[in-house]
């Protein structure tokens, strides 16, 4: 998620305001399903994690998973929600991927209500509710080139049926596509931090639907909204909202009005299209599920959850930014918190490492799953070697990679590899050799303006690096080049 290039959204025409609310389903990372002991695991052979309960066989009964309830309450508290007594209800509708042809969900008495999520820029999005429900199975449409309308049959796998979900419903407080993406990023960071979901959009363990409408700027009204589904990435989310808002503005501007409907995002075409019609009128005939009993969390239970809540991402980012007193960039801070590496960086900094460089080095070069061998002390030592010029950036990256593998001290790795930054005289000699070997490029560098020089400095640094097998410090080479082009 973090690697995506930021995309600039086209602003709405003057006089219009975007109104977005998001419904996010997240699968909880419990060991078992919500109402039975089947494994909650992605990617297994179809219909191998099933039992009478999650297949909805006649006579079977649900018993709620205590961990799922606990996870949901933890998430609720992390979102600042009030945790309340809750009951499970049945949402009745027919669909082949729903084993009982009703979904057990929470309706008028959800576990969490009235929370808030503060985005990195300070904008606050209200959370209406975060309720517990069961997931459906997975349907594959076969034949007809994968197009649903032409499919010759469908296959159903119930491994996912009954996996615990929390649906987090925001208030329509989101005003730009970027805010929508920031909301999802932040929600994901909170989910990871609280440890209740792996929240992967690509694998479907985090699914985002957007309710989009527009209104004249300054108005309080809520106009007809469309629910956009099939948003499988942050990029899709931003693009879909932008497209849909534009469509609404066009309709209103030409005297028409959007229809309230579900629409699907078509990533290839870059537009939303109307969903297939629903099979039945929407009357879900909700009623309290008589097979389950109410959840009544005690004040002590909620207090215990609060006491165990980790420091949330927003606070951790703030701490990181404070440590560097501006030296750590906001994007590095976000990334480090997301990867759980902020504590490592802060410890290394308190061990004497330079904050900005530490953050950058870890953010850029420690994107690995297992970095347990890198201790704050060894990281601080590495950054010390680099910032004091005893090691080049390239060398530091290689040493860090070896620290990940072996856990050895950076000094001994550097020594073993024969790494030490080249002494200044040696480097200057090499730079002169490279200049002499490339007279044409040098002439253009010397006579060029800033832009021209920038282009060519890359060439010269590359040549020097090749000659020194990476032991040169790029910044030092650049300095030497400039000195030679404009002798004092």
């Amino acid at each position, binding site marked *: 998620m973090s690697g995506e290039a930021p995309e600039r959204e086209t602003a709405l025409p003057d006089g219009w305001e975007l109104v977005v609310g998001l419904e996010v389903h997240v699968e909880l990372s419990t060991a078992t399903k919500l109402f039975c002991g089947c494994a909650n695991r992605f990617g297994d052979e179809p219909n191998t994690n099933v039992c*009478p309960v999650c*297949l*909805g*066989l*006649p*006579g*079977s*009964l*649900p*018993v*709620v998973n205590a961990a799922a309830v606990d996870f949901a309450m933890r998430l609720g508290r992390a979102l600042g929600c009030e945790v309340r007594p809750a009951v499970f209800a*049945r949402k*009745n509708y*027919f669909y*082949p991927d729903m*084993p*009982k*042809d*009703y979904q057990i969900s929470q309706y008028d008495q959800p576990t969490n209500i009235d929370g808030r999520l503060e985005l990195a820029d300070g904008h606050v999005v209200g959370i209406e509710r975060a309720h517990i429900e069961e997931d459906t199975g997975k349907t594959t449409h076969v034949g007809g080139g994968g197009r649903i309308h032409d499919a010759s049959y*469908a296959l*159903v796998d119930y491994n996912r049926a009954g996996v615990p979900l929390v649906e987090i419903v925001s208030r329509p407080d989101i005003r730009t596509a970027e805010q929508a993406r920031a909301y999802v990023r932040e929600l994901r960071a909170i989910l990871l931090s609280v440890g209740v979901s792996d929240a992967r959009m690509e694998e479907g363990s985090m699914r985002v639907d957007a309710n989009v409408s527009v209104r004249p700027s300054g108005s309080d009204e809520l106009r007809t909204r469309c629910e956009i589904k099939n948003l499988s990435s942050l990029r899709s989310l931003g693009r879909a909202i932008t497209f849909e808002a534009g469509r609404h503005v066009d309709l209103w501007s030409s005297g028409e009005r959007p229809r309230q409907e579900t629409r699907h995002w078509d990533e290839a075409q870059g537009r939303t299209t109307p969903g297939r019609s629903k*099979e039945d009128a929407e*009357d879900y*005939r909700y*009623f309290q599920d*008589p*097979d*389950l*009993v109410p959840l009544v969390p005690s004040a002590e239970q909620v207090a215990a959850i609060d006491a165990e809540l980790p420091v949330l991402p927003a606070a951790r980012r703030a701490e990181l930014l404070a440590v560097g007193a501006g030296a750590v960039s906001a994007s590095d801070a976000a990334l480090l918190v997301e990867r759980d590496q902020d504590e490592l960086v802060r410890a290394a900094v308190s061990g004497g490492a330079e904050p900005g460089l530490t953050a950058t080095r870890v953010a850029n070069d420690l994107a690995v799953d297992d970095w347990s061998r890198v201790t704050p002390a060894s990281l601080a030592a590495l950054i010390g070697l680099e910032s004091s010029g005893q090691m080049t950036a390239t060398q530091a990256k290689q040493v860090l990679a070896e620290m990940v593998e072996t856990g050895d001290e950076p000094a001994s790795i550097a020594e073993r590899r024969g790494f030490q930054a080249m002494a200044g005289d040696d480097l200057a000699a090499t730079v002169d050799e490279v200049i002499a070997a490339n007279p044409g490029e040098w002439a253009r560098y010397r006579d060029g303006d800033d832009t021209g020089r920038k282009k060519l400095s890359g060439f010269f640094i590359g040549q020097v690096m090749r000659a020194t097998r990476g032991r040169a410090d790029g910044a030092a080479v650049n300095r030497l080049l400039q000195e030679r082009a404009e002798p004092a």
Partner: protein
Amino acid sequence: MTAGAIAAAVAAGERTARSVAEDYLDRIAADDSEIGAFNLVLVDEALAAADRVDAAVARGEPPGPLCGVPVALKDNLCTRGIPTTCSSRMLEGWRPPYNATVVERLRAAGAVVVGKTNLDEFAMGSSTENSAFGPTRNPHDTSRVPGGSSGGSAASVAAGFSALALGSDTGGSIRQPAALCGVVGMKPTYGRVSRYGLVAFASSLDQIGPFAATVADAAACYEAIAGHDPLDSTSIDQPLEPIEDALAEGVEGLRVGVLAELCGGAPPEAPAGNGAPADVSRGVEGVAGDVLSRVRDAAETLERAGAEVRTVSVPSAVLGLSAYYLIAPAEASSNLARYDGVRYGLRVDAANAAEMNVNTRTAGFGAEVKRRIMLGTYALSAGYYDAFYGKALRVRTLMLEEFAAVYNDVDVLLCPTAPTTAFELGAKTADPLLMYLNDVCTIPSNLTGHPAISVPFGRGDDGLPVGVQIMGPALSERLIFRVAAALERTATGEGSAP
């Protein structure tokens, strides 16, 4: 032979479980074609189970309380690998991959399952005529119905096809057929017996319970199946009180209330004890005079035995039938949605999945099941929820409060089980409401979740058995068995028979 006598004989090595099973299976083979109690007779399985019991006895293992006792299971209780049909085309041939908790407990107690008994389709009915596989007939008069929906189980015990049977009771489906077949039938406190593996009709009302020829046998069967089950969230986690020693205690000093609203309205005699309102004469419709006479006899019997008998009033009891016929169909409409032709059971194919669902359900369900699904769908639908389902749930509250109040004044309540004795086959099939009225006296305990027992007490003018009902507050099983045992002693001649 009673179940107790069989268990004692098998445990003592005086009889083998196999010989007992063979006797019962022979009787089924000889006579069930006339009665139609069974959907499936498990000859091989029963003999194998009996052999296991005998082997265990031979090894000197502690015999279970139902050691070698032949038991019949209502065919809405899941049996692993053995067809479980609910007497519906929808589930014809379905073999569950698991056993109901009660089935596991019966086996652990040493019981031998001899077969699966007929019922009204998905337990919806009061005569066992709504079965896809044909009706069951009353062993006392085969032109009459056995009651329902657990008619097969009641008939099985009445005909001597099994010493015990299990049924399920959602609105009276154990007690009413027990009354009509002249056997003991008991509905435990909601949550006392695990519902895991009972194919759901109306989940907040369904309870599994025993049929037996005697109160003591019914109590032993209840004790074998009752108790906490972690697979049922609504299961009560409280210790069971032993019942057997209470049966002989008698009723001296017990306060018994005759429930006016279920006894034709007008108090049989004596003024209302708990300040019953003046309109107590507003009772439920259709309770026959001969049945009321037997209830009066029962009241007198208890009084003679030392109980303090008075008439009491629970005004909301008259609303029970209406509330029930909103709540039960509502839950059923949801519980029966899963029969969609996708995962098990019947499928009638079509060009698309939704039409396949419609074809399957239209072909697979009988008329009564469809009627209740439609009624329940209506009661839950957006425009009508508050007027019907929502109100029915409040009537339930009202009943709970009024029963709680009356149980401050009396220990148990006495009333008829069914409004009439067994009626002719076909007599009520054309008029659903008339059929529903059969449950008018049994429904209140389902709505409140309280235990109740029907015990045979004399006969009607037509010579057919009459059952009287003892109801008690939640978890009062020991008490209602005790009162039932006192009535049984009279009815069987140990006292002054009516």
